[in-house]
């Protein structure tokens, strides 16, 4: 029952966030299409968070060799791929009516986010290809740490290249959106965080159960017995 608290809470906050997003007045220039902002931006931020958690889990595994950190890193990468896909999809759906095309190569942040998606597909492919759990944790943790170089590059690319994408809307000196829109956005951001946590914890639990089921206390050599040749 306790395991259901987080998913239920995430669902409730998500519904509230969705309602608030629909209730805010339409944007002066983008009209109702701007509402997709409440999904696209939180999805992007959570994707970045997820990949940082993967890197942290990777470093922690390297330092402690405790299986939990590897499970955390793997689970966070899987969830991160999901949110990155959501960010790319919603970005494309937003781009078509606003920019006139689904994909804009002039948008450096969009291209960099797509790259981040591929980096972590490679990370998950590496995990899948390595059978031994210790070797898998070791190899994946190395790539997890190296891959996080990409994440700051995505975020700061908006400042580095000329881009059609709007510059960071939430800045340390204050946001450039109205208070109603800001409120709805923050609720949606909270919802996405809760969904991320719910998915992460479930995936970690599943990973542990899978490992426990696969572990064997029977010596490997017991599978080999003396031959029993029947007469021809």
């Amino acid at each position, binding site marked *: 029952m306790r395991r259901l608290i987080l998913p239920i809470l995430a669902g409730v906050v998500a519904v509230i966030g969705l309602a608030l997003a629909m209730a805010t007045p339409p944007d002066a220039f983008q009209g109702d299409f701007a509402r997709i902002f409440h999904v696209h931006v939180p999805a992007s931020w959570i994707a970045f968070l997820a990949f940082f958690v993967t890197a942290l889990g990777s470093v922690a595994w390297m330092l402690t060799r405790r299986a939990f950190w590897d499970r955390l890193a793997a689970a966070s990468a899987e969830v991160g791929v999901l949110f990155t896909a959501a960010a790319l999809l919603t970005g494309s759906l937003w781009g078509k009516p606003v920019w006139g095309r689904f994909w804009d190569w002039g948008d450096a942040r969009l291209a960099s986010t797509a790259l981040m998606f591929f980096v972590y597909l490679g990370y998950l492919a590496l995990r899948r290809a390595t059978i031994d759990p210790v070797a898998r944790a070791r190899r994946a943790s190395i790539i997890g740490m190296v891959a996080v170089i990409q994440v700051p590059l995505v975020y700061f690319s908006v400042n580095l290249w000329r881009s059609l994408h709007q510059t960071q809307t939430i800045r340390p000196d204050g946001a450039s959106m109205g208070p109603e829109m800001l409120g709805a956005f923050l609720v949606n951001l909270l919802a996405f965080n809760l969904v991320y946590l719910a998915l992460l914890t479930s995936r970690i639990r599943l990973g542990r159960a899978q490992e426990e089921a696969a572990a064997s206390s029977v010596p*490997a*050599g017991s599978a080999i017995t003396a031959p029993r040749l029947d007469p021809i």
Partner: protein
Amino acid sequence: MALVTLQHVSVRVSRLLILDQVDFELAEGEVVGLAGPNGAGKTTLLHVIATLQPVSTGSGAVLGASLGTPGQRLIRPSIGLSGHDPGLYPELTLAENVRLFARLVHRPLTEADTVLAQVGLEGAAGRRADRCSNGMQRRTDLARLLMLRPKLLLLDEAHAGLDDDSEILVDELVRRVRSEGGGCVMVSHDATRLAARTDRIVTIRQGRV
């Protein structure tokens, strides 16, 4: 002083239990044989002793260095390992392979030529390894071990597939190591060979001694 002590060592690879609570000791000047059926864990135990295979549980020490500590890097150059695969670089000549090893272990390069002559490969020293037979490659591996003069010699089916001269070389290698206070662990399926060449035999079955 014991060259090798292993206490309750277990090794799990890909979730499979390969070694189960193994105790093992090797004294100075001792030659111990490892026997057992296929899949018993003999090669894995050899690699644990070589400090190349991490243990899942248990403890031990090899040449004074505890397993799983940075200290084991320092004693590795005193370990000689020989198996089915001589580990030569196919594009390099036999001499270049041994000279590369000499450079890595800080021996004079001329020693490489000396040991190749000692194993009877002087005439083939300039031949690429991929143009030499497996027997010649394994003799080159023995030359490398002669040059190394290891304190701990680990042989994994080292006699299998060798001609009589090469077998003599292996025996000579073991004799030299033993006479200098070192030790040897020898894996073989050939019970007769093990009985003739070792002080005692340890039998492994299903990962247990």
